[in-house]
């Protein structure tokens, strides 16, 4: 599956954060938060981005939303390179691409009531006060919060799940085409998570949206996504459809991730954790493949250069691992998790 008809195309995106220390605050090192990430998002699909904390997923989201400026790379939205647009001319872009934030408690202004908070987005783009309020009521209705009951309430009077719905409403009031969701359900209880996820699915179907869904929770990603992208330490290690990746993870990191998720079945209890240790420091990542220090299948070639993300198998599957260098396209024996 090629990148034609892709609503979002990211090529070689890179962001290093300088580490300043010393008397004159000189740059001592760089945190390589996002290091050469390339992928695309098809119109109407849900791309799930999964990875550990610190792998650069949130930075990636903010780079695409242009809340942070990337150091290198291209981001094409609707075939237009949005990185070329100056900051002052970004308003039309923000009409189309919106973001839902992670923390329901700090992502809403405590001094604004719900309808004003949602209407603010509409007013920024030129709507009058009454038109913006009507739009806010409509979209609040869509997320399941009745405007008469909730409109004038303040964030501290709502539960976490309700606040997150307000977050979603705020992102949707401008009728965007692409919604970037940065761990939208991570701060919620499981039961509430399910409600919000179902709401997101329903909204996507009703409004024809495209989602870039970021999470560290594999179950959530599996539940919602059409395609999955696995990140490790600022780089993409595997891409594929959700079914393929979950039933047949190819990259050793993905395999370990799926093996690590706890199950309720005591028979599935493991003796040894499939993945030990902490991810290496992004200031000084290992040479070559960044996962080789924790990889059970590390070889000599893994230390030489970063494995490129290459197509393997069918259905647009891509893996960045030297293990598959000598495999055929249809994939023969793959190493399994011990």
């Amino acid at each position, binding site marked *: 599956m090629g990148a034609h008809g892709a609503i979002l195309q990211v090529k070689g995106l890179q962001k290093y954060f300088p580490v300043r220390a010393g008397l004159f605050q000189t740059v001592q090192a760089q945190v390589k938060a996002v290091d050469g990430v390339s992928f695309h998002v098809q119109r109407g699909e849900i791309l799930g981005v999964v990875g550990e904390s610190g792998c650069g997923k949130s930075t990636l989201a903010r780079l695409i939303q242009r*809340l942070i400026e990337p150091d290198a790379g291209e981001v094409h939205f609707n075939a237009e390179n949005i990185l070329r647009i100056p900051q002052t001319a970004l308003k039309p872009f923000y009409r189309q691409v919106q973001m839902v934030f992670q923390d329901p408690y*700090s992502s809403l202004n405590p001094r*604004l009531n719900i309808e004003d908070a949602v209407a603010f987005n509409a007013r920024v783009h030129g709507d009058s006060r009454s038109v913006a309020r009507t739009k806010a009521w409509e979209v609040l209705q869509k997320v399941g919060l009745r405007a008469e009951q909730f409109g004038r309430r303040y964030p501290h009077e709502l539960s976490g799940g309700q606040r997150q719905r307000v977050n979603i409403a705020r992102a949707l009031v401008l009728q965007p085409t692409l919604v970037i969701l940065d761990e939208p359900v991570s701060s919620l209880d499981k039961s509430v998570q399910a409600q919000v996820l179902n709401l997101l699915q329903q909204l996507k179907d009703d409004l024809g949206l495209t989602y870039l869904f970021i999470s560290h929770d594999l179950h959530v990603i599996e539940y919602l996504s059409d395609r999955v992208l696995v990140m490790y330490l600022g780089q993409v290690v595997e891409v594929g459809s959700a079914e393929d990746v979950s039933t047949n993870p190819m990259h050793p990191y993905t395999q370990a991730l799926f093996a690590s998720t706890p199950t309720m079945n005591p028979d599935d209890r493991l003796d040894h954790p499939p993945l030990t240790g902490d991810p290496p420091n992004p200031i000084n990542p290992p040479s070559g493949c960044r996962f080789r220090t924790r990889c059970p299948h590390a070889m000599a070639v893994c230390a030489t250069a970063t494995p490129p993300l290459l197509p393997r198998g069918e259905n647009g599957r891509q893996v960045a691992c030297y293990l598959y260098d000598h495999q055929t396209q249809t994939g023969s024996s793959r190493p399994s998790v011990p």
Partner: protein
Amino acid sequence: MADTTAIRMPQDLLEGPVGKPMSYWQLVWWRLRRDKVTLGAASVIVMILLAAVLAPYLTAYEPFQGSIRKRLLAIGSPGHILGTDEQGRDMLTRLLYGGRMSLTVGVTPVCVALLVGATLGILAGFAGKRVNMVIMRTMDIFYAFPSVLLAIAISGALGAGIGNTIVALSIVFTPPITRIAESVTTQVRAWEFMEAARASGAGALAIIRHHMLANVLAPIFVYASTLVSVSVILASGLSFLGLGASPPAPEWGLMLNTLRQSIYVNAWVPALPGVMIFITSMSFNLLSDGLRDAMDVRL
């Protein structure tokens, strides 16, 4: 200083009312209405203010006219309910007219410092690192001096007079307010809703106006209100030292100075200006405490 809020606040003030949703300011007002001590302090200030404004109607005497024959009459003398000072002027009259000056010199510097300090602090918090550094390190220079000494030094350099006192005190109070403003602005900027506001495509000014100011002004205002009581005392102190109002102005601090020698003749009359300074300063102090309690709502 021990935290006395646990003693003063009944439990129901720590939560809000049940029922209709309230905005932050409605909540603050609701809590203030229930706080007896703050209401008391506020009424005292209102009374002093009214007395100062309506002074001509409350006494028949003139604050500058005295009769040497009647000097240093005791409190409760016929015709002079609070006695007279060393030049025979009626104390009650001088205290009432003095209220005008003392309230002005107490409140004006804080207002000026609030305006200048809040602007500088919010600018420092919002703008880049370099602007921040320039503003904050300049304020640090002023912070190096104890506030009383700084006030005396600036007053001494500018010369005597109420106007110069106001200028001096404004300069003394601007750095602390700037510091608070910068700190609060930096904190609020880190909240995710600020990022969300930027992600909506709003410009910096719209974000500041709609999202930041409401969250930032409240703590700054609370801090500034605590400075009013300090300002009253500092202003009186400067006048006492001869750096503020000059005689025959009926300013409380100045009255303390001129009445100092008369303690041996009549002990209570010289204490009266001090009592007024104390009442005024204490009332502002309690009011600002109550304001802080009411505005510190856990949202």
